[in-house]
């Protein structure tokens, strides 16, 4: 019996270390070492902290996107939601002369409403998948942004607005603090609440979830609305960092965000994955981009590298599964012998 307990402990320890998140941590360390060795400017703490400013704005969308992908859905309209809410904020400040605070609130409201509309469409038209719905709204939202602003830039925000993207609290960038708070909230929401449990249940088996009395439509709408809201948050920080906005702001963000989530070990077939994995991989991809940028690699080459990383990350779980199966068979055989 004691022997068995020991085995269990070893198994638990093994399970702990055989997690995808550790692979990500190793990758993250490797990337930092490589970056440091090829660029003399890289390994300097305040430089590294500043580097996070360049990608953390999109990391805000990674948090709710984890929920969306665990549901087994996808939302490709987020970059357009960023554009629309950013443009509406700029126009209401510059052209409608609303106070900046009100314009910022409007930005969040627009993001939330866009997300809500996504959710409602997906729930009402069950024959349309989330991809189809959000591809359509992606075009619509960005189209509206173009209609409002034409092909112009809109800036001239008050001085204090740039604090969001560039400000420091002590020596730590303000955006890191806000992101850390959001990351904690979303992690708790996913892993410690009934809501998170329902999301996992629906991602694993939506029929059984409905039969278990879960209000599946309601949960889906909330998840997509949250994604819209966080896209609004991204719009605030991104616009602040850029100093002005254009209708083509945040173009292609959705792919970066989805890449971060998938590399983070969240399965696109739904039901599996952890928040921490997506957060680590957001930093991983962000730092990779930053480092490769420092050595003056063209951005197209960087895209290829990130693409390869994604293919690799999708492959790895399959390899792991094969190994797991093989060891299971070995175990079973060993058990047979001991019988």
């Amino acid at each position: 019996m004691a022997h068995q307990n020991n085995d269990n402990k070893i198994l638990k320890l093994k399970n702990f270390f055989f997690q995808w998140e550790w692979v990500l941590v190793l990758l993250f360390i490797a990337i930092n070492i490589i970056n440091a060795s090829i660029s003399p400017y890289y390994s300097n703490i305040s430089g590294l902290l500043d580097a996070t400013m360049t990608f953390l704005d999109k990391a805000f969308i990674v948090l709710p996107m984890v929920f969306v992908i665990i549901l087994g859905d996808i939302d490709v309209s987020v970059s357009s939601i960023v554009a629309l809410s950013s443009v509406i904020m700029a126009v209401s400040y510059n052209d409608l002369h609303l106070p900046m605070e009100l314009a910022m609130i409007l930005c969040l409201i627009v993001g939330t409403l866009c997300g809500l509309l996504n959710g409602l469409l997906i729930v009402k038209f069950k024959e349309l998948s989330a991809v189809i719905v959000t591809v359509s709204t992606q075009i619509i939202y960005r189209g509206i942004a173009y209609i409002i602003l034409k092909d112009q830039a809109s800036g001239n925000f008050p001085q204090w607005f740039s604090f969001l993207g560039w400000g420091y609290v002590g020596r730590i960038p303000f955006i890191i603090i806000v992101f850390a708070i959001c990351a904690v909230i979303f992690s708790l929401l996913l892993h410690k609440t009934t809501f998170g449990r329902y999301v996992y249940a629906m991602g694993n088996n939506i029929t059984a979830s409905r039969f278990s009395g879960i209000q599946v439509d309601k949960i889906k709408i909330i998840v997509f609305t949250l994604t819209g809201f966080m896209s609004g948050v991204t719009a605030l920080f991104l616009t602040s960092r850029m100093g002005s906005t254009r209708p083509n702001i945040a173009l292609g963000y959705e792919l970066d965000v989805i890449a971060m989530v998938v590399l983070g070990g969240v399965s696109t077939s739904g039901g599996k994955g952890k928040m921490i994995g997506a957060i680590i991989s957001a930093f991983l991809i962000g730092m990779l981009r930053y480092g490769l940028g420092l050595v003056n690699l063209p951005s197209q080459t960087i895209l290829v590298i990130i693409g390869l990383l994604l293919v690799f990350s999708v492959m790895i779980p399959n390899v792991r599964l094969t190994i797991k199966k093989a060891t299971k068979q070995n175990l079973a055989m060993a058990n047979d012998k001991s019988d």
Partner: protein
Amino acid sequence: MAEHILELRGISKAFSGVKALDNVQFQLRRGEIHALMGENGAGKSTLVKIITGVHLPDEGEIYVEGQRVHIRNPNDAKKLGIAAIYQHVTCYPDLTVTENIFMGHEITQKYSNKILWNEMHSEAEKLLESLGAKFDPRSQMGSLSIAQQQIVEIAKALSTNAKIIIMDEPTAALTKRECEELYRITEQLRDNGASIILISHRIEDMYRLADRVTVLRDAKYIGTWDINEISREKLIFAMVGREITQLFPKKQVEKGPEILRVEGLTKAGLFADVSFTLHRGEILGLTGLVGAGRTEVCQSIFGLLPPDKGKIYLEGKEVKIDSPWKAMELGIGYLPEDRQKQGLILQWEISKNITLPALERFSKRGWLNVKKEIKTARELAQKLNIKAKNVFALASNLSGGNQQKVVFAKLLTLDLKVIILDEPTKGVDVGAKSSIHEIISDLAQQGYGIIMISSEMPEILGMSDRIVVMREGRVTAIFDRKDATQEAILEAAMVNKDNTPIQ
């Protein structure tokens, strides 16, 4: 020439230890219509699947025209001239009739493999004409009625030069006039030399068409008769004629006040005018043939298929139920038929499965209380005697019976008044079966009102206080426990007395 175009000898087939066919024989004469009859689960569809190469028999021999053959896959069956037409037409609704007829064996030009559309259309036209059909082969399959689609399926069988045609419940979805049309075509096929195996739950179909009938019961061969030498009573007896030897742990429970009343529940195309009552402490058996609408009625009460018409009263008050969530709030629980797809999240532990419907109870303002969750899961697992290493074992690793107990445990986390059980012992072994029966009996004693859907006659007779029988979407009889017999139930489930199809 051999007398029998198809002969099966000593066929046995088991699925994970459960016998689906046990030393069954079957002989099909050239140019006859041969009916294959039996209750749900008697082994009819397994036999058909062996003839069409979907399943391989564990034992036994198959002869076609006197020659021993091995049918290893559906393609082998096709080459031997065997074709099957199924109850639920399997077609491509967006393609034309011609494409459906020639799917997989298109007429093509040699070498270039170019499809010869004109030839195919005219061939299809000829086939349809020979069946007396009057629609254009260029029309879309999905635009046809079910009867017309069935004719296309028959044309498809003819286009492969099938000599043996199996018709599985062909009239189940047809109106009376369409049935007559199908009868005519079937007879015409026979007169042209095809041999036909007819599977139908409708006894009147059989008397109208068949030359001979073979009856299966509990996976065994019972007998073959000429149709005019067996009476309806004798036929029904052949189908049910078993002694009920199993003991059921039914407890005597004082019938309580009325808890659920359903009045005139109707859902177009599925069921019509269904009314019954349920009392506290009562087990109401709901039976009928597969497809009679039993599950649909219960899913309607559970909010999955809101009815078009009719009223549901819970404890005397009328209630509107539009979602399972609402049903559970009101105190109605449902144990689904397919525990793997509808009842459980297989990738999850037992404990998380058990607490899923009542998660709000194991949380404070949305925060999960995992300790409380596990405590309750342990208690319920022990109470229902779920056999697993611990409550953290994955649901996918449990046996069918234990999986079913986990689904039962899910219902017990809630404050329910009415529990609906859809085939609660389907696919579980004998030992687990009787312990599930015990659980059901205990629940009734605790004052739950229980509706139990079951296709198993001994279970229905052994467990129910009253028995509601459905046939083609309507309630055809309600029996008290003391008046119910196997024969009476089967007659109510199978025989059309007033010729009123639902529409």
